[in-house]
């Protein structure tokens, strides 16, 4: 790894193997990650893909079996304390002790980072205000709602104004309104502090809307890494769906559709019974031409539809699963689907 590195995260061939009985489970297999300062990266993958293990490696909660990583400029293996000093971490669970008071926990979190008492108190008050927790400042953590608890987690993760913030499924379990609220806070705080954000999420719409970059992980490896729009354009593209009167009609229309298909040709038209799904460069402008051409050829379409890709489609193409199913569906390979954490 170059000594001149100014990357927020730089991981090379990061590998984590767990012993499980006689079996060795490779939860993370040769992870390469490079994240620039200021980026907002969403880390996606089905359950058991190795996301949480990766995050635990990068945040020094687990030592890697092989490979190396520099996080916030420090080596996770040789300088874990220095890494911890520089990063913020919001885990899947709650950060605050349930028998503690909200404000006390934020102040103490600051003091753990070496901020003196008064400064930590001042900082806690400004975070309480900006995360709309001021009115529960003296309440017990156990009495907070799920959304309030999550915002408290974020406040604690930000108390030392880290340049790099790790979030493990920050919005899981929140209702849509709390999710939107939480995101407003994350984005605003990011704008204020120019923080690099590296997060895992289960919600593809979130990643689509907020992330500048999406990494998809499956079976312990990163299998895609691009902007959300890049992933959608390159992996799926836009499509036109045409319905005909019969299977036979649809078949007759196929030759006339060839010239409108995407030049990249990564996907052939899909013919299923009376419908044909055709990948095209730009669905909106192609559709009128296609309809006219079919009319002239004597195989008119009965109904039409344009389809724009979602990250769900991308996810399905990449992993063969939809993200919503992954909690319950049978995983494809047993070796990677063991518990992610030991």
């Amino acid at each position, binding site marked *: 790894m170059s000594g001149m590195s100014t990357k927020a995260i730089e991981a090379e061939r990061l590998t984590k193997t767990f012993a499980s009985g006689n079996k060795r489970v490779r939860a993370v297999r040769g992870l390469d990650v490079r994240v620039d300062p200021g980026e907002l990266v969403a880390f996606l993958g089905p359950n058991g893909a190795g996301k949480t293990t990766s995050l635990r490696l990068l945040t020094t909660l687990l030592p890697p079996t092989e490979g190396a990583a520099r996080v916030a400029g420090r080596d996770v293996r040789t300088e874990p304390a220095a890494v911890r000093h520089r990063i913020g971490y919001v885990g899947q669970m709650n950060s605050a002790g*349930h028998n503690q008071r909200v404000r006390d926990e934020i102040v103490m979190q600051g003091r753990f980072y070496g901020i003196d008492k008064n400064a930590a108190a001042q900082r806690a008050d400004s975070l309480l205000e900006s995360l709309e927790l001021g009115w529960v400042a003296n309440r017990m953590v156990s009495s907070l709602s799920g959304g309030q608890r999550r915002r408290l987690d974020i406040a604690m993760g930000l108390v030392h104004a880290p340049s790099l913030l790790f979030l493990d499924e920050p919005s899981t379990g929140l209702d849509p309104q709390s999710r939107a609220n939480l995101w407003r806070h994350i984005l605003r705080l990011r704008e204020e502090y120019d923080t690099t954000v590296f997060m895992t999420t289960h919600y593809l719409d979130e990643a689509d809307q907020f992330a500048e970059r999406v990494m998809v992980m499956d079976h312990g490896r990163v299998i895609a890494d691009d902007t959300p729009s890049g992933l959608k354009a390159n992996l799926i593209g836009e499509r036109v769906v045409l319905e005909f009167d019969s299977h036979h009609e649809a078949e007759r229309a196929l030759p006339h559709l060839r010239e409108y298909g995407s030049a990249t040709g990564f996907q052939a038209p899909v013919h299923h019974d009376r419908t044909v799904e055709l990948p095209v460069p730009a669905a909106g402008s192609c559709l009128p031409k296609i309809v006219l051409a079919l009319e002239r050829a004597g195989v008119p379409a009965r109904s039409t539809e344009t389809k724009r890709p979602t990250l769900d489609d991308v996810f399905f193409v990449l992993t063969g699963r939809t993200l919503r199913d992954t909690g319950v569906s049978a995983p494809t390979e047993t070796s990677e689907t063991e518990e992610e954490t030991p």
Partner: protein
Amino acid sequence: MTTRTDHTTVPTPRLRNGRTHPNNVQADVWLVFLRELRPVLRDPLSIVFGLLQPLVFVGLFMPLLSSFSAGELDLHWFVPGVLVMVSLFATASTGSNLQFDMHTGAHERTLVLPLRRGPLLIGRALKEMVPLTVQACVLILITLPFGFLPNPVGALLGLVILAGFGVGFGALSYALALAVKNQDWMFWTIQQAVLFPLMILSGMLLPLEQGPGWMRVVAAFNPLSYIVEAERALFAGRFGWEAVWGAVAAAVVVLIGLFVGTRAMRRA
């Protein structure tokens, strides 16, 4: 990294040259201790409720014992033993607090802080002194009107030994919690399996002098036996070898507890 405009009034202190942690070891211990102590101080009644069981022993068991021994085993024999029981029971279950923090995620969060692992355990264990000392004092106060008259200096030294034992035993309880991870049932099973034999084989409730020989042999290896003897001696104002051996036994429990506990925390 780019220079960022800092809107915060509080910049994080940068690590000075050669330093690996923002606070020194004592500060780490102090902060963890302070944080653990806070819920206890806010809810002092919970400390007093912990006295219920020892008081039942004093109120219901002691009169029986006294009759059986024709008055020979009185408050002065029994109360010091119950004080050891207080410190044993108060600290043996403290690992479950850590288990709760492991369930909620609060424990994981502390592992990502720039805190040393040792103080994470030591600060918690040191906090155990506070509730147990308060409990012991309240129990002594309650028994005073019934004729319990301890030697003040001896009582003070006795409380110091108890506090030390509590720190060590609390550390072991935390170590157990870390070892069994999320399996609560395992924690309680092991805890109970250890607690009662330790208690009975210390001569805390009944004198072992009249017990079978093998029991006395086993009790000789139980550090708690020496602490119980020391407490009885000190509260009666005898400052001899009994007290010294009790202090040594407490010191051994502290050393073992902190060593095992710190190791467990490093592996967490």
